[in-house]
């Protein structure tokens, strides 16, 4: 509770006690000056204690030409009730005070609940490190602000501490809790040479880490910035309600005015009928209290915020409420193969010569892999990494020059003075090299040296453990079709598609083709349907930004992915895709429930009020009660799944 809230609570308690005393007192006229208009002075004093800020805001609003906000509604309703009691000489000022008192209790509750959930959501994302330990020359260490560390410094991370800045372990072994980053509860073992991401918690051993990034560029800063920015993107529902509230409030004010004036005027025209002024004014005041739009205005952004927080807790970063909303309408999921459904870790399964027969000569095999690995040494593509691994030795970069990467074809380079081309069949055609078509399933890397075919390497990709399960889960979450896009050959693509149960597959696509394909698919879908593209974010940035929703996987490390994607899955488990869709559906359901609940109850009470059936107490429920229900409902979206 902050100071503002504490002050408010004191005012509420004081006013409530005073109101109770005044209500229970058999005769207020025993008090000094209590005889004036049946104790008006006492009631007014209590009224001012509880409502002075509302009056002030309403008057300031009028001065700044901003009438018709909730403060204005409350001022008119309560002062109206006072005026009516004076006019009727009933001395029933309690209603006016109660309306103000309950309105303030509602506001207090709202601010408390919203503050609470704001803190809850922030604590889900509580990964901001408070300090870093820098090692000094004499071996002792000093606590500094993570901002002041810089790159290339050695920092000490002790058990229980957060890794403050991204870096590489220089010394030590430990397990890291990366739950806050990836949602993965299983600890990650690290040793010297391993990369550690800021925001993970060191659990067992002391680590000496050489920093590789500034704090501002580190994972933790990027995630926090993303989450903070996400709240500023408005959903359509929220924008709609804001527009709605802007029209709605003046409309109900005029409606209340009409209710107060028209029926009595009509009755005055009919001879013999009592205009019943006070009764109709009372109904108009009830009308005003009921109509306050706060329940809607606060609960919708709160639901989305809670939904985004809940998703963040699961390792799913959603960039905005608009994205969360669009995610619930996803009917088509397009998946990239490599890195998304498969691990993107390839193993050399065979090496063939020009007759598509297995190479037998060990020396020749070694040569083939060496050429491929050297040519690909500058590429970060999973295939090239696998080739480096198969090569097994350290790449001597001085042997390689003139590396040219031809997107969708492969690589040409000069190795030990020889012209080497490494890539697919299209590259061989382009280079005019006679090659043979390989009949094995897998990714085929053809190698040519000085214009002569040297043979090809067959690489097999390993599927992710949850890939098949993830596709079933997508269908269960209401996705109509799943489509796989890949640059790989048709045979590899269709085998993976068949094993995993993907609906359709497009293979042998160049990076630019993927964009065209996604555009085609977007053009054919229904108006309210959305298409999501899931990729590992390394080569897919254009596709990620072109799709309705771009989902980058395991992309915390890649800047391009965070830029281009709308949703970032912090680990690379494909099951998270369906989880994200389910969270968005749940959030949207809660939003709809709140709109229906608030508008429904208010609508019904407004009709009852106009007919004269509702009293002030029902009006208070329709205002404050509905708001409390809506806020409690909104907080539900914090709990994912």
């Amino acid at each position: 509770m902050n100071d503002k809230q504490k002050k408010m609570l004191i005012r509420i308690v004081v006013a409530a006690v005073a109101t109770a005393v005044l209500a229970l007192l058999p005769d207020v006229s025993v008090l000094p000056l209590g005889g004036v208009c049946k104790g008006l002075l006492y009631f007014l004093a209590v009224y001012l204690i509880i409502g002075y800020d509302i009056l002030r805001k309403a008057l300031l609003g009028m001065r700044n030409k901003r009438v018709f906000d909730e403060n204005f509604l409350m001022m008119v309703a309560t002062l109206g009730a006072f005026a009516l009691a004076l006019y009727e000489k009933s001395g029933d000022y309690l209603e006016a005070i109660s309306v103000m008192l309950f309105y303030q209790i509602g506001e207090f509750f709202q601010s408390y609940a919203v503050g609470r959930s704001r803190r809850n959501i922030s604590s889900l994302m509580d990964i901001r490190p408070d300090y870093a330990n820098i090692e000094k020359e004499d071996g002792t260490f000093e606590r500094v602000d993570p901002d002041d560390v810089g790159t290339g410094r050695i920092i000490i991370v002790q058990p229980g501490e957060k890794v403050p800045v991204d870096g590489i372990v220089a010394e030590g072994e430990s397990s890291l809790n990366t739950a806050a980053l990836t949602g993965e509860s299983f600890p990650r073992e690290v040793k010297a040479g391993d990369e550690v991401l800021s925001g993970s918690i060191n659990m067992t051993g002391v680590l000496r880490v050489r920093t590789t990034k500034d704090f501002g560029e580190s994972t933790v800063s990027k995630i926090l910035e993303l989450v903070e920015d996400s709240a500023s993107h408005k959903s359509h529902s929220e924008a709609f309600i804001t527009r709605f509230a802007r029209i709605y409030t003046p409309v109900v004010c005029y409606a209340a005015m009409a209710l107060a004036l028209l029926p009595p005027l009509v009755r005055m025209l009919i001879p013999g009928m009592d205009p019943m002024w006070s009764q109709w004014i009372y109904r108009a005041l009830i009308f005003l209290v009921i109509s306050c739009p706060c329940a809607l205005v606060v609960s919708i952004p709160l639901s989305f915020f809670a939904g985004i927080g809940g998703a963040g807790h699961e390792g799913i970063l959603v960039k905005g409420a608009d994205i969360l909303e669009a995610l619930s309408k996803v009917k088509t999921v397009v998946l990239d193969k490599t890195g998304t459904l498969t691990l993107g870790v390839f193993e050399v399964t065979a090496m063939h010569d020009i007759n598509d027969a297995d190479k037998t000569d060990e020396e020749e095999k070694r040569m083939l892999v060496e050429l491929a690995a050297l040519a690909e040494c500058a590429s970060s593509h999973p295939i090239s990494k696998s080739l480096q691994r198969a090569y097994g030795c350290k790449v001597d970069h001085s042997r390689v020059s003139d590396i040219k990467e031809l997107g969708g074809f492969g690589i040409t380079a000069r190795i030990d003075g020889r012209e080497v081309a490494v890539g697919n069949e299209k590259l061989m055609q382009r280079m005019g090299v006679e090659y043979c078509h390989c009949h094995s399933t897998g990714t085929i890397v053809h190698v040519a040296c000085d214009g002569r075919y040297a043979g090809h390497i067959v690489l097999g990709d390993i599927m992710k453990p949850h890939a098949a399960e993830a596709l079933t889960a997508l269908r269960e979450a209401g996705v109509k079709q799943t489509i796989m896009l890949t640059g790989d050959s048709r045979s590899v693509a269709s085998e993976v598609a068949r094993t995993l149960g993907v609906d359709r597959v497009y293979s042998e696509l160049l990076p630019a083709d993927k964009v065209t394909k996604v555009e085609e698919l977007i053009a054919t879908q229904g108006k309210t349907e959305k298409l999501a593209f899931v990729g590992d974010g390394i080569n897919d940035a254009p596709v990620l930004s072109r799709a309705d929703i771009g989902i980058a996987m395991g992309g915390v490390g890649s800047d391009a992915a965070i830029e281009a994607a709308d949703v970032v899955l912090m680990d690379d488990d494909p099951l998270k895709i369906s989880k994200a869709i389910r969270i968005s559906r749940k959030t949207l359901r809660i939003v709809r429930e709140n709109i229906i609940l608030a508008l429904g109850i208010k609508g019904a009470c407004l009709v009852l009020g106009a007919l004269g059936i509702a009293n002030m107490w029902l009006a208070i429920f329709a205002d404050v009660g509905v708001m409390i229900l809506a806020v409690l409902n909104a907080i539900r979206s914090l709990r994912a799944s």
Partner: protein
Amino acid sequence: MKKTYGIEVDCANCADLVETEIKKVAGVKDARVVFMTQKMKVEFEEGADEVSVMEEVLRIARKVEPDFCIVK
């Protein structure tokens, strides 16, 4: 230049109104007022004086929402 300020604003609706109004302040290129995180992001025009622009921003914001304040 972009800066983020912690703010205190009491209702979601007022935050929207404040945002609309301070976007019109001279020297402010773009602004975001977020009720949920209680943060305000202001992007200044090239060469604008931060201190004087922020004074005006606060004055305009207070006009819309008298309880608006910037937390230090």
